[in-house]
Structures are given as C-alpha cells and as structure tokens.
C-alpha cells in the first residue's frame, strides 16, 4: 500500500514538473506588444490604456501627460523582426533572439532615416515589460514600452 502511494506521489510530482510552463524548454513564438507614448509637461493627462505604466513612470519622470499615440501587437518567432514605424522618420525594430519559458532575449534598435540611433540587447522576463526613451517629439519625448509574453 505504502509503495503504491509512494509511486503515485512520485508520478504526480513528475507530471507537475513536466506540464509546468516554467520548466518548458525554448518556446517558439512570443507575443510582443509595443506601445508608443508621448510624454510631456503639458496639461495633466493619462491615457486609459497607460494607467498600469503611468504610475511607475511617474515615480521616475516629471512628466504630467502620457498619451498613447500608437500600439502594435506582433506574434514573433525566434529571429523574426518586428518593425514599428515611429513619428519623425523613425522606426523601432524588435527581434526575439532566444525564447524560453521564463525569459526572452530581444535585440532592439531605434533608427532615424535609416541610421541606428540606439540599440540594445535585453533579457526580458516573461509577461514583463521594459520602457525605452526618449527621442524628442513635439513638446515632449517619445517612450517605447515593449512587453513580451511567450505563447
């Protein structure tokens, strides 16, 4: 009886470990959401879609207005480039170069008229995001919030 019970317990733990998404080996596709935000010192305004982020940004920046000017959701496979056009002849290129259950390695580049003005390689935690800024835009700055969710 005890031996059988021991076996059941061991099998249950083994199943749990194998099915747990966190233990998954390198995944195939990552849902990458990019939000382009215009931050400025203008009249107080927070886009309803940015409420989650504005509080965090507000702890670091002194801007009073956060407007969502564009958002794009992409399902990117490993090494597949995702391009988002930005105001002012700029573009943002985001490429997942390694996808696992816990972390996504992204190569991110910001270009202006074809020239690379900023590039970075980051290790983003699954279901988290990073914010990059900021080229000047109108009376404020552009911020790019990039989030990744392994599918």
């Amino acid at each position, binding site marked *: 009886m005890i031996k059988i019970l021991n076996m059941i317990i061991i099998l249950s733990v083994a199943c*749990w470990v194998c099915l747990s998404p966190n233990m998954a080996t390198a995944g195939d596709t990552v849902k990458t959401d990019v939000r382009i935000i215009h931050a400025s010192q203008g009249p107080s305004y927070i886009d309803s879609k940015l409420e989650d982020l504005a509080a965090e940004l507000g702890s670091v920046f002194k801007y009073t207005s956060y407007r969502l000017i564009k958002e794009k959701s992409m399902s990117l496979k490993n090494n597949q480039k995702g391009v988002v056009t930005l105001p002012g002849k700029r573009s943002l290129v985001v490429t997942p170069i390694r996808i696992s259950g816990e972390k996504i390695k992204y190569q991110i580049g910001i270009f202006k008229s074809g020239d690379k003005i900023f590039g970075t390689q980051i290790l983003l935690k699954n279901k*988290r995001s990073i914010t990059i800024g900021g080229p000047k835009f109108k009376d404020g700055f552009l911020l790019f919030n990039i989030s990744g969710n392994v599918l």
Partner: protein
Amino acid sequence: MKKTCTTYDKKIISEFVDNELSSEENKKISEHIKTCPICKNISEEYIQMSNAFVQRTSIEVEKINTGSLGENVLKQIKRKENGFSKKVFDYFSPKLYLKIASLVAIMVVSLIYFQAQPVNIIGPSAIVNSVDGNASSIMILETEKSKHTIIWFSET
C-alpha cells in the same frame, strides 16, 4: 614644464608610495621628490586617489544595513541543513497519513497553479546585456515599486 621625470619612472613612484622599495632606494627617492615637482605631484596624486577610494568606500559601506546580516546568514544555513536529502529521507518513512496529505496538497497546488500564474514581479523586469548606437548618453533605471526597467538615451 616637463611632463616626465628623466630620473625615475612612474612605476618606481608607485612602488615608493606603497613602501615596497628597499630602505636605500626609499631614501634616494624621498630626497629626489623634495626637488622634483613632477615626481612630487605624481606621488601626491597617487596618494589622493587611494585616499578618495578608501573614503568613498567607507561611506558607501556605512550605508549598507547590516542589522540582520548575521540573522539572514543563520537562516540560510539552517535552510540548507534541513535540506533536500534529509526531507526526502524523512518523507519515505512509513507514515501513511503524511503521504495522503502530500498527495492532496500536490493536487490542490497543481489546480491553483494551472488556473492562473501570477506574474513574477520580484527582481527587475529586464536585464540589459548591451547597448550601442549614436546616443550621446545612456541611463538605465529601475522603478522602486515593481522594479520596472527603463533605459533612457539622449540622441546626439
């Protein structure tokens, strides 16, 4: 004014400042420094840099809260002592009710876990491996509450 001394090079001055020369060499250089503004300046700069480093490090280390360091260490040690092998050994002793309870717990935890996986907000949201480009300056920040990572760059 000459930028380098023709008698002694900077390496000897470095060893002099560290008191690593023989007493004879030490004496010679001490005398030389009295009349050579270049070597005097170099030795003073070396000493100033070391002092600045020591001073700054002391200030920074004083800011570290060591109040619970000993306690945390002992906790870690006790956690490792009541470690995996001991748990496994105790686990396989014949106590039926414990095993049934464990099985139930595994099933309950599995059900909850597969329902919804909370986002892990402990630690920074992203680690920055490298940066490049024509930005004139780059800053990497982390918000206090949710450890959200922010990269700020200035275009040239």
